[in-house]
């Protein structure tokens, strides 16, 4: 009996054990199933969480965008100690996955910043503002709701993300304190080598010989805070040779500083006779001629009580204005030659064409122009003889029988007002006596001078406004008073890449290139096929989707098949860009499109409105510029190495209107979250 009980006990134990094992196998199968379902859900949830983040970070007004951009403490654990990290993270809704999940599983996801770098890879240059490169962690947890916790699955994925400022805030009353990718967008017209180009073309780069007028205006003229600046890049870091000028023409007379004309001082008759040595003799000769013509033997005349008036007038310097008055262009050219001689320089152009650039509103030029931009006008120091009080004594000798008689008669010139007026309008140019003498001697000019006023040299010296000059001392502003000259020691220097100066462009790395931080570019080396493939540009619907900075390896042509509409804010860098039709933002959006070439031109082959910021700046002196094959209507801005006006359509009116969206009080950032998973960890929790 004992043996039977023993055997039964053994068999019973074995049976129970076997049963337990089989139940365990079943349980394990269930556990694996649960775990696998959890893993599937976690993978789907991680994808959905990523898409949610990708979608929301495309909207600059979304809460998630703002949190990520600002790296709020609730989402950024990069600067926290290990013990404080678990509570950090932003819950990400994953509704689609939750709908697909069985009832007994709960799904949750959160995202947080694990790492962020706001200094470029060289470690030398800090990114602007909140720009930088970081790592975003998406953590998804799927776990059974019941007490049976086996099968919990957690997936942790890391994605790189980049924050880049497409437009950075700029206070119009101050200069930037550091490099910003988008600094060129501060300007409605930025010419990096503007001063050097101006010098090499002797001023023709801004005052072209053939008719090309570019009108620069502001999209919001009522708000100076929104004005786009105008800047002609300096050649050197110091000194006055960074100056450029715009000729004043008839349309811009209102810019002339101070009094337009003013009388300076009078000289008496004897002095006049010295200043104009032939004055009395020519009067007498004329009287003699008139007397003979009248049958008299001879005649003579002398004038008394006449006065000489020294005065000046400020005249537009262009041919179109001065040629309306006889001899004025000659006077201007004569003074120009003398000035060049005196300065031992030939840098000033002999031509006086109308300016190629008109900047509006003229009342706010002081708020628009940066750097040393001056107005060039003709200060006409002049002299005329005032006959209003003069009298002429005429003596005529005539035959009366066998005798010669003399008749003398004195008359006031004022009795013949036409003579007075004629004299008053007969201006004679007044030049610097010393310079003129030296110039004439050097040039071998032997003819008589207009005026010989050495006798009043001290007077002239004390009254420099009496002397004609081509005036270049005043800034290109409106409402200037007399003597408010340009401060030549003020050299504006935008802060360029890695804190280098605008003129230091001898090698590519030292260039003032916008959007120079390649680490912040969302995509690189794209082809036109990529643009279509990646959904950036749909050539059929002609929609352009912008987000952050992308760089292409091929030239880009927009608008081949019609108007192009863009949405979002971003920058396209390409080796050559051509725009063949209107480029406009999606209505109702504040989209910003920036098109950049480096060392290649941007060609505008349409007269329709192009709403974009155009930047053509080389990495060295390759020289970027804009080509306008048709009358340009640009709503945005232009930044280029050179103006290269020869590439703009002749006899055309071109318009550049600054888009106020480019001048902001706060930065316009874009976030690009990479689709690629740089790290993944799957945790399957046993307990």
């Amino acid at each position, binding site marked *: 009996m004992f043996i039977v009980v023993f055997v039964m006990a053994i068999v019973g134990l074995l049976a129970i054990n076997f049963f337990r094992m089989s139940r365990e196998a079943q349980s394990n199968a269930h556990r694996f199933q649960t775990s696998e379902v959890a893993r599937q859900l976690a993978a789907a949830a991680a994808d959905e969480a990523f*898409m949610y983040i990708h979608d929301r970070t495309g909207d600059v007004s979304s809460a998630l965008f703002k949190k990520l951009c600002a790296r709020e403490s609730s989402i950024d654990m990069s600067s926290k100690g290990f013990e404080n990290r678990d509570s950090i993270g932003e819950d990400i*809704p994953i509704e689609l996955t939750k709908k697909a999940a069985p009832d007994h599983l709960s799904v949750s996801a959160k995202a947080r910043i694990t790492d962020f770098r706001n200094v470029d890879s060289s470690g030398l240059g800090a990114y602007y503002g909140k720009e930088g490169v970081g790592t975003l962690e998406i953590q998804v947890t799927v776990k059974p709701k019941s007490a049976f916790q086996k099968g919990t699955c957690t997936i942790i994925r890391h994605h790189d993300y980049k924050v880049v400022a497409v437009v950075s805030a700029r206070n119009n009353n101050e200069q930037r304190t550091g490099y910003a990718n988008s600094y060129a967008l501060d300007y409605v017209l930025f010419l990096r080598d503007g001063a050097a180009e101006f010098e090499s073309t002797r001023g023709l780069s801004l005052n072209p010989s053939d008719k090309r007028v570019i009108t620069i205006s502001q999209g919001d003229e009522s708000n100076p805070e929104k004005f786009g600046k105008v800047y002609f890049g300096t050649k050197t870091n110091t000194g006055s040779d960074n100056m450029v000028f715009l000729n004043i023409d008839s349309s811009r007379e209102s810019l002339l500083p101070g009094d337009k004309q003013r009388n300076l001082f009078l000289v008496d008759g004897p002095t006049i006779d010295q200043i104009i040595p032939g004055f009395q003799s020519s009067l007498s000769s004329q009287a003699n001629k008139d007397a003979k013509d009248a049958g008299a033997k001879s005649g003579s005349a002398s004038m008394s009580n006449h006065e000489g008036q020294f005065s000046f007038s400020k005249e537009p310097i262009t041919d179109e204005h001065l040629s309306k008055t006889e001899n004025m262009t000659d006077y201007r050219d004569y003074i120009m030659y003398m000035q060049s001689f005196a300065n031992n320089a030939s840098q000033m152009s002999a031509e006086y064409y109308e300016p190629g650039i008109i900047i509006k509103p003229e009342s706010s030029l002081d708020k628009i122009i940066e750097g040393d931009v001056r107005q060039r006008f003709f200060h006409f120091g002049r002299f005329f003889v005032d006959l209003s009080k003069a009298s002429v004594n005429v003596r005529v000798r005539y035959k009366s029988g066998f005798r010669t008689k003399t008749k003398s008669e004195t008359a006031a010139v004022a009795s013949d007002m036409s003579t007075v007026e004629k004299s008053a309008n007969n201006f004679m140019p007044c030049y610097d006596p010393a310079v003129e003498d030296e110039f004439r001697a050097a040039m071998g000019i032997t003819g008589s001078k207009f005026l010989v006023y050495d006798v009043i040299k001290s007077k002239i010296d004390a009254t420099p406004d009496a002397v004609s000059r081509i005036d270049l001392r005043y800034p290109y502003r409106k409402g200037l008073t007399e003597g408010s000259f340009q401060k030549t020691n003020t050299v504006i220097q935008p802060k360029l890449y890695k804190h280098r100066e605008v003129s230091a462009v001898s090698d590519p790395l030292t260039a003032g290139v916008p959007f120079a931080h390649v680490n912040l570019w969302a995509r690189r080396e794209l082809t036109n096929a990529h643009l279509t493939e990646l959904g950036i540009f749909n050539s059929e619907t002609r929609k352009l989707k912008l987000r952050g900075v992308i760089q292409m390896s091929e030239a880009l042509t927009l608008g081949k098949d019609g108007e192009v509409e863009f949405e979002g804010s971003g920058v396209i860098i390409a080796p050559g860009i051509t725009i063949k039709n209107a480029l406009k933002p999606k209505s109702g959006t504040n989209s910003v499109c920036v098109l950049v070439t480096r060392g290649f031109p941007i060609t505008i082959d349409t007269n329709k409105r192009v709403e974009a910021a155009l930047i053509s700046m080389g990495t060295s002196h390759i020289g970027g510029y804009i080509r306008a094959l048709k009358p340009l209507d640009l709503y945005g801005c232009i930044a280029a190495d050179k103006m290269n006006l020869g590439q703009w359509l002749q006899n055309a009116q071109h318009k550049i209107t600054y888009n106020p969206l480019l001048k902001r009080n706060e930065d316009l950032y874009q976030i690009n979250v990479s689709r690629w998973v740089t790290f993944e960890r799957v945790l399957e929790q046993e307990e």
Partner: protein
Amino acid sequence: MSIKIIKRRVLGLSLLEIVIAMFFMSIAILSFFTMNQASNQSSMDAYYEFLAFSLAREPIEVFRGFGYDYLASIVFEGAAPPAWYKVDDNFHDIPFDATADMQYPAEADLFQRNIKLASVSEGSLKGIKIIVTVAVKGMSRAEIMMSRKSVTLESVVMERPK
């Protein structure tokens, strides 16, 4: 001495005792066999369910690899899915074929599979829901062993940026 021999003989098992012992023994052995059978069934149930589950998981993994655009072309444009993964309302055999590119365990032949795709969205997020149901074939060994006759697995493949 003789008394001892007599006593030893008296201590031996009687037939009745053996019968009783065999009765208990048979009950125990019967229980053992019953438990063994139940355990065996549980194990095979778990095995087949796991197999069914793997067969359900497979197209989800493959479709996830294909990505949203491919699945969307099947859903919206009627593009044909790969031959092994027919997408319709019917159940299809999962044949064992040693010469085929795709290899399944021999027991896969005991199951049929149905794959459905459906478009889902939440706000601007778009996805394709994959629903895979693997059912045991009728009158098969697996049908006897399995407590559940089908396994359904769902997942979502989200649209991703390119």
